[in-house]
């Protein structure tokens, strides 16, 4: 069987399945920031319980006391080490126990997860979350 006969029918048959399950996007369409609501941002102050300086994302776990007096744990997604490092973040910039204020775009699902737009550190320094994550639209 020649090469052409081998190739043609099989790939068409599995095309959509392969594309949907295994595609690799171009850089412009950021992979999943769309799951966060970047229009209706919220501001929260809380205590850091974890600071994961890791790839593919840096994460902050933040305990936030709600208006009902109950503490909720938030999972805050930051950019990756490379982007953050280039805008001045350090691996030890945030520590468990720090009280920080964040401006975030929360998950559209309503779960306590969010995309960071800006963090205010205990000493008052404000840091962004890199270009792709977008800017805060509240103060």
């Amino acid at each position: 069987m020649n090469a052409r006969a081998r190739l043609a029918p099989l790939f068409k048959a599995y095309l959509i399945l392969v594309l949907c399950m295994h595609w690799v996007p171009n850089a412009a369409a950021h992979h999943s920031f769309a799951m966060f609501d970047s229009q209706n941002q919220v501001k929260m102050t809380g205590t850091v319980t974890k600071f994961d300086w890791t790839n593919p994302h840096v994460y902050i776990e933040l305990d936030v006391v709600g208006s009902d007096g109950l503490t909720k744990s938030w999972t805050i997604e930051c950019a990756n080490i490379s982007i953050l490092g280039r805008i001045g973040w350090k691996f030890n910039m945030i520590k468990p126990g720090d009280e920080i204020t964040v401006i975030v775009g929360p998950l559209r699902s309503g779960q306590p997860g969010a995309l960071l737009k800006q963090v205010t550190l205990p000493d008052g320094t404000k840091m962004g979350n890199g270009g792709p994550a977008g800017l805060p639209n509240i103060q």
Partner: protein
Amino acid sequence: MYKTSSKLLAALALAGLVVPALQAAEAVGIDGKWFAYPGQVDPQERTLEPPAPIPDPPLKPEFLEDWRTLRATLAAADARGEPIASGYTRCIPDGMPAMMQGMFPMEVMASRGQITIIQEAYSQVRRIYLAGEPLAWEDAEPRFWGHSVAKWEDETLVVDTVGIKDYVMFRNVPHSPAMRISERIYLLDTNHMVDEVTVTDPEYLTGPWQWSWMYTRRDDYKLYEYVCENNREFADPETGEARLRLFGE
């Protein structure tokens, strides 16, 4: 006879020093660290005309509509705030040719007989060999970054790459094992480099798919590690949507 031998030895020794130096000197222009231009460059440094936008792939009619539908579906899902899970959701890296788009900085290194390129995103590594003939696609084990051989044509590195895994795609464009990626990599000036990419695929494309990427030199940059060790994203088993695993889950 002793004097003649020592002169011969001296000449051979000199040649032994000069030839590798010449090979290294050919490559040293593209050696270094590179940021994507203009995307990763501050506005005031955007002094050169950026490359033209990448055109749509010249897919054969039987594939083109499916591709357009998929792209529209993905864009609509994003717009709804319900993005479909992608290769990135599973920490699958770009592969070729996408790795050369310079999502993050990259490092180009010439050593004896090869050029090695490291892309900071996902710590992707491709090796381009300066000896040997391009592989027949049938003999090319499918890989993320394929099998690359290159020759210098004056100051331009002309690269052939074959053997990309079926699910490693750029812009969701399907391809066959026979897809080849040809590149012409050269300096525009000391601080700017171009990669002219041409993709051919007798099964999927009506003709060559061509575009250029451009980079600006950043020799003081030190690449970070990238290990996908803390992936909190996953694909919803029912909808295929990208979801976030929260702390405590």
